[in-house]
């Protein structure tokens, strides 16, 4: 049984002044864009950058930066929610939808029939796991532009995953590819107890949260 906590007189969470229904439970709105990184910022030159979609049989499709830029672009405007409790509204991005990416990968022979999950892998070794259903159907992008400019390195540039309907640790910075998986394999934070799914509207912060 947990110890009875001492209540600090006059201490309370930051006031939620956002319109009702906009802020998930336990979050507060920020106008900043806090930088959270699990390691030093990688600095990959565009000439060295590539993106790979690989299936469980080892077949892969690879794009150089220029090839990637030739895929159809979208400009989603989305709210984002960090598990450390800040939310930021109306963030503007530019990127390639994961739907378009997977479609292009399919035409190049990558097999998605048995894949139910993906693991995003990144420069610096970071990984995160997602259900395929959470990155398809218009829910996810590989984003290289933020707020009308190239995505800065500290926010994940050259490109990061963008999956705004889940807690933002799933929007992996410095993403270099997606590994299609038959089973869900916990990534960097999930191994340490963060939720495999991570829906902010159900407050799925930690493993075991319903």
């Amino acid at each position, binding site marked *: 049984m947990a110890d009875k906590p001492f209540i600090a007189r006059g201490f309370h969470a930051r006031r939620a002044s956002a319109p009702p229904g906009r802020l998930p439970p336990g979050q507060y709105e920020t106008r900043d864009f806090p*930088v*959270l*990184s*699990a*390691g*030093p*910022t990688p600095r990959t030159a565009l000439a060295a950058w590539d993106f790979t979609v690989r299936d469980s049989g080892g077949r892969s499709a690879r794009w150089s930066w220029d090839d990637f830029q030739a895929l159809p672009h979208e400009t989603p405007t989305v709210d984002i929610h960090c*598990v*450390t409790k800040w939310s930021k509204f109306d963030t503007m991005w530019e990127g390639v939808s994961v739907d378009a990416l997977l479609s292009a990968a399919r035409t190049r022979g990558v097999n998605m029939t048995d894949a139910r999950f993906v693991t995003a892998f990144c420069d*610096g*070794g970071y990984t995160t796991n997602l259900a395929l259903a959470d990155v398809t159907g218009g829910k996810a992008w590989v984003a290289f532009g933020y707020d009308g400019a190239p995505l800065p*390195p*500290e926010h994940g540039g050259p490109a990061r995953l963008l999956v705004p309907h889940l807690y933002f*640790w799933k929007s992996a910075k410095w993403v270099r590819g997606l590994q299609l998986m038959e089973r869900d394999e916990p990534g960097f*934070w999930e*191994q*340490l*107890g*963060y939720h495999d799914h991570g829906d902010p509207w159900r407050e799925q*912060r*930690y*493993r*075991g949260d319903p």
Partner: protein
Amino acid sequence: MDSEDMHLDGNAAAGTLRDVFARDVTTAIATCRSCGTRGAVGALLDYGQEMGVILRCPACDAPLLRLVHTPGWLRLDASGIALLVIPDTASAPQS
């Protein structure tokens, strides 16, 4: 702001580490499994911020120790440490 500025060091992780090790380990010497560099845990770079403890090798950036305390659980991955040498003054020979 550069994310280079955001990291702390093993001193910041000392309280959470003590929840696992039941003693201060910031003076313990950790050997990095990746590059072999040896240094005090207090001198490792802590990138965890509010998510948890991520102690990295100052020489090669490999993760030596990852520790997250969620309600009801402490999860520790120390696989990046090849050897941890902790001074134990309580049992030291009387000089």
